[in-house]
């Protein structure tokens, strides 16, 4: 993170989402600044995935606002002040979404290079040589073997696929990346390297991100701030190491004390 940027990139206020009579997440508010990494933790059913879907524009919340600093236009409610095409453009350019299962975030049958280049073509890039050069550059930055650039990700390991998914998202220079359990599907030995890569990239690119996970080890290493959710509500919110080392809420205390020692 570089020095102070005083305008928030994202401002969430009073966000609530209901499925019928069930409240999936209730009255969530926070701000995110450029370069900040926010972790959202909670067990399955806590509402963290619904919250991520609302934040990333894929689900319209029942009430409340998700305001994003749209380039050149300032903070706008992505659900109510942007049209569907504008929202899609945002997702393809200024935002990235890294999913737990890279098969959902990649096209498995086209080459690795095309997976990265596709996002550039979607925003109008047409020059083959330039697209190829950017794909090469990003394969290198996520430490993928360039010899594999013409192979489809169906031939890649899980860790390689996740690196490719990250490259595909970052090639358009997003300012905000959403990550849903980005390391959970990977072998432990691969997780550590990927976490180091994500830390390095967020620092180099002053990238803001929101990481949803149930893994407290991941948020300890990756996130600056932490939101703890239970039954759709934010029960604790603060500096990551403060929340983990001096938890105040009974549920956070239970969560932290339940980590298995190695």
């Amino acid at each position, binding site marked *: 993170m570089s020095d102070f940027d005083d305008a928030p990139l994202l401002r969430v206020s009073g966000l609530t989402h209901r499925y019928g009579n069930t409240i999936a997440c209730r009255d969530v508010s926070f701000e995110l600044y450029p370069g900040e990494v926010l972790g959202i933790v909670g067990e399955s059913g806590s509402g963290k995935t619904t919250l991520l879907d609302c934040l990333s524009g894929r689900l319209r919340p029942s009430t409340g606002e998700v305001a994003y600093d749209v380039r050149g236009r300032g903070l706008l409610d992505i659900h109510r002040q942007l049209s569907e095409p504008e929202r899609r453009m945002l997702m393809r350019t200024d935002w990235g979404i890294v999913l737990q299962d890279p098969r959902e975030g990649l096209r498995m049958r086209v080459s690795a290079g095309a997976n990265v280049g596709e996002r550039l073509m979607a925003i109008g890039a047409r020059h083959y040589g330039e697209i190829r050069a950017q794909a090469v550059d990003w394969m290198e930055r996520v430490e993928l073997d360039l010899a594999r650039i013409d192979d489809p990700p169906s031939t890649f390991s899980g860790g390689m696929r996740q690196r490719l998914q990250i490259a595909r998202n970052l090639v358009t220079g997003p300012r905000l990346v959403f990550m849903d359990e980005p390391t959970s599907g990977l072998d432990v030995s691969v997780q*550590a390297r990927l976490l180091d890569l994500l830390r390095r990239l967020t620092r180099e690119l002053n990238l803001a991100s929101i990481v949803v996970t149930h893994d407290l080890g991941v948020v300890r290493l990756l996130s600056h701030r932490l939101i703890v959710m239970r039954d759709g509500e934010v029960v604790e919110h603060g500096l990551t190491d403060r929340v983990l080392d001096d938890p105040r809420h009974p549920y956070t205390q239970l969560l932290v004390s339940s980590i298995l020692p190695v």
Partner: protein
Amino acid sequence: MIRVEQLTKSFVLHNQGGVEIPVFADIDLEVTAGECLVLAGPSGVGKSTLLRSLHANYLPNQGRVFVRHREEWVDLAVAEPRTVLDARRHTVGHVSQFLRAIPRVPAIDLVAEPMLDIGIGQDEAIDRAAAVLARLNLPEALWRLPPATFSGGEQQRVNIAITFARDYPILLLDEPTASLDAGNRAVVIEMIREATANGAAVVGIFHDRDVREAVGTREFDLREARPAA
């Protein structure tokens, strides 16, 4: 550089029937540039808890933790997370008792990272990291290895290097010499004295009397801050 007012801390253990454990109450402290304040008192008296409160790792129940950051007094007890992180990045260095690092990252990169964070170039950061690791007598063969398999003393030296490769105006040291041999203890003593000579304000917990006597300019005994029963 540091001004603590009316600081009170207790822990409430909700999953142990809500029992409240008071640690200390109404602490007032001031540490100026060039001072090294030694936290004293028997084990369990709250020395680490106070040090962690100064680092905003623990949240006090009441009171203020002012640090001089970017030429202003910032109260870490109530500051926004990003302000706390900015203060930690630029002003408040901290050596914990144990190294906590991303697995599989080489020692020298761990030491370089806080320098990269403030915009120092890669080459210079690595050079400075190498210099401080050499000074702490960490064998060069270990620099490119992740510290997970290092001995306790080697890990602790990496931990010290991570903080001392930078020049923080405020240093919080939690038993930095506990697992070091006499030779390396002497190196750390020298580094702390250089820091205070250069104007750093230091607060530390030191198990060894020789270290306390060599670096301390003042002592604060936590027994004076026992909360009323």
